[in-house]
């Protein structure tokens, strides 16, 4: 500070700092309230994150990247006699950087699943249990295979599959980023399967639909 300061004089509106500070005060009051009337949009701006990541659902660690079909070669059983069943574990994985929810639907083709010589209860059956793993005792050669899903988890479907989409996981399941969920798939040839199904075969296709958490 210089020693030769001009004498202080009284502040007035013409002073820069006073005026600007007053303007600030006025605008703060105006800005917060005045604009509310002009827009009637929904949704709040405060809060919420930016998610510039990827959403990627994988099956048994395959299918990185969008879409794709995974040949689950172990999801099969030959020489099924009526009453036999086999269980498998399918891992649904979150390979992307955002958490997602998924549902799943299934179809089957082939006479073992669709033959009109059998009722729907007599054809190949599928039971789906999320959060569970599948295991099978017995062997194909001894015709005594019994599949079962572990006690944990929730059964989401049990019944036949046909040519049109059947929802096998109707309730959205959440998987966090980098997470995995086991799904037990239990395939059964009912004891009541008629002779017409001898030697017939079928393949099953499952489609997992994933979407971002919070998406409608």
């Amino acid at each position: 500070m210089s020693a030769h300061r001009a004498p202080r004089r009284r502040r007035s509106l013409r002073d820069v700092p006073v005026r600007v500070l007053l303007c600030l005060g006025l605008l703060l009051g105006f800005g917060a309230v005045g604009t509310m009337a002009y827009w009637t949009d929904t949704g709040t701006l405060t809060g919420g994150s930016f998610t510039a990541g990827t959403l990627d659902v994988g099956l048994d660690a395959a299918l990185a990247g969008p879409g794709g079909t995974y040949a689950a070669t172990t999801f099969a059983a030959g020489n099924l006699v009526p009453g036999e069943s086999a269980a498998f574990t399918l891992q649904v994985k979150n390979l992307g950087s955002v958490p997602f929810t998924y549902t799943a639907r299934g179809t089957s083709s082939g006479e073992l699943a669709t033959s009109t010589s059998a009722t729907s209860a007599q054809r190949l059956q599928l039971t789906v249990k999320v959060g569970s793993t599948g295991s099978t005792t017995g062997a194909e050669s001894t015709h005594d295979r019994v599949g079962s899903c572990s006690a944990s988890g929730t059964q989401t479907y049990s019944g036949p599959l046909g040519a049109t989409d059947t929802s096998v996981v109707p309730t959205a399941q959440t998987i966090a980023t980098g997470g995995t969920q086991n799904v037990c798939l239990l395939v059964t040839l009912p004891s009541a399967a008629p002779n017409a199904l001898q030697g017939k075969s079928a393949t099953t296709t499952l489609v997992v639909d994933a979407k971002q958490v919070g998406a409608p």
Partner: protein
Amino acid sequence: MTEQPGSARPAPGRARVAAGLAADGVLWVGALLGLAGLVLVVAGWLLGTTALVVRSGSMEPTIGTGALALARPVAARDVEVGDVVSVVAPSGQRVTHRVVGLRRDGEVARLTLRGDANSRPDAEPYTVSAVDRVVVAVPVAGRVVAVLSSPVGRGLSVAVLGGAVAVRAAVRRRRGGTAVQGRHAATTSALLVAGAVLLPGVASGGAPANTLASFTDTATATSATFAAHAVVSQAQPGCADVNGVLVLGNVARVSWTQVDRAYEYTWELRTTSTGALVASGVVGTGAAAGSPVSVDIGTALLGTADSYQVVVRARLAGTPAWVATTTTSTAVRRQTVAILGVSVRCGA
């Protein structure tokens, strides 16, 4: 201030000059942001535009995450496939995606939307009578607006701008200048600050809204083959004449090899000439694969004819309805030995 122009004052120190320049810089940034805010406000008044902060990236590369999209309302009848529109889903969440399917129904349209980065459309179509159609998207601007509109951001921006104005005014005063220049400086500062403060106010008033460009992905798993068993027929049975203690005990032993432990066999004794069923039975249940299975055809089983076929059919022991499609057979016959009696022998 009643300073005389050109009065002798000490030149401002370097620190003060730097502070003045920094304050100037801050006020310029504030001014530009303020101008942007004013533009948004005016566009909103004149055109009804809505500013959208894009919070995720399923519209990439067209609209990046953190972009600020400007959308204006259009009637449902003016929406075309290919437009990028913003709708509010029943959940209250706003979604901004491209129209890939469109079905009109009078004044209303059913839109199927899909993000440019998604492999499949949104799960549900949206039925609307009017939508906000995106006109332009400015990258990164959404992040700026989000920061400025947060409570912390608003407080900071007001404090920083206020401080900059005060510093600038103080520096100017120290450096001297006319009263008129001082008033111009004050007015300019006030306008700059007005815009900068108005932008956060506009933002929190609800004009820029959050929108998701929400991601989806689909994965398909196909099984290999599930196949049912087919019952396999046994090989042609062999036949052996087996003699008992008495002639009456002479039997024809028909035998074959067990194909599968799970099988059993039905055998039928039928007359060769008419095929009439004379006797039948089940044999071989539980026999190990590869072990011999046999049935003894004795005189007690015979009817009146002389010539018979033994017909063997395999089936699943656990599910008797599942039978082999073919049978195998061998011939046996009645043999009468004078005085001694009747035997059953192999062969026709």
